């Protein structure tokens, strides 16, 4: 086992996670010596942090609704531009990836489907890509 993959017990969930990245955030990105599952765990955290940031921005943006049609509809015109639609598609990749990978982590963490975890990862990855492509087409089509 490499130093990067050495078991570190989570302070938030002691006993629940066998292997966690070391405490230095930069070591989360040392993918070269990590297992696929470990890389998924780290990506889930990075996507989760991005989604928390987006959630806070989204809540602030929703305040435009209190300004009535002139405030909200002006924002909607901007949000329908190709640049913002592309940001939506990137956001969707984060949401779908985080959601399905989180489901995988929850199942494996509860001891479910452990013998089939590699197959589960492949199935969820394929499902995620299919959902993302369909959603991207729907978003661009408007």
């Amino acid at each position: 086992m490499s130093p990067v993959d050495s078991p570190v017990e989570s302070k938030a969930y002691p006993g629940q996670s066998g292997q966690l990245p070391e405490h230095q955030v930069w070591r989360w990105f040392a993918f070269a010596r990590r297992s696929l599952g470990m890389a998924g765990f780290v990506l889930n955290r990075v996507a989760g942090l991005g989604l928390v940031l987006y959630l806070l921005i989204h809540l602030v943006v929703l305040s435009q609704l209190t300004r009535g049609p002139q405030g909200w509809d002006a924002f909607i015109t901007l949000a329908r531009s190709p640049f913002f639609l592309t940001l939506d598609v990137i956001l969707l990749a984060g949401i779908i990836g985080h959601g399905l990978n989180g489901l995988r982590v929850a199942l494996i963490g509860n001891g479910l489907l452990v013998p089939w975890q590699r197959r589960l990862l492949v199935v969820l990855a394929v499902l995620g890509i299919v959902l993302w492509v369909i959603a991207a087409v729907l978003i661009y089509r408007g």
Partner: protein
Amino acid sequence: MTHVMDTRNQNRAGLGWLGQAVSGVLLLILLGLHMIAHHFVVKGGLRDYQEVMSYIGNPVIAAIELIFLVVVSYHAMLGLRSVLLDLGLGKSQEKWVTRSVTALGIIMVVYGVWLMSTLLSRV
């Protein structure tokens, strides 16, 4: 005494992990509904002001959106806390993190309820 404290912390952590998993599964459903309702079945991809008002004017929809707000805030703050606690903080910093994310979560829900009630008063 230390053993009792450890057991209590383990139980609390187990509950937190379960809460994160359950709220995550709920979010797959609620966020899916939210995305379909707000983006995929609307002409132009996003609801304009009148469409938003008529949408949230439905009490069932308003209730679902409020449940979504509570679940997403809980899941987000619990996740943020777990990432921060795993950075190797001291005991007092851990308490500060827990209080801060709890406060932020409460602010998010209170703000969301205020926003929803403000909009509903105009329907």
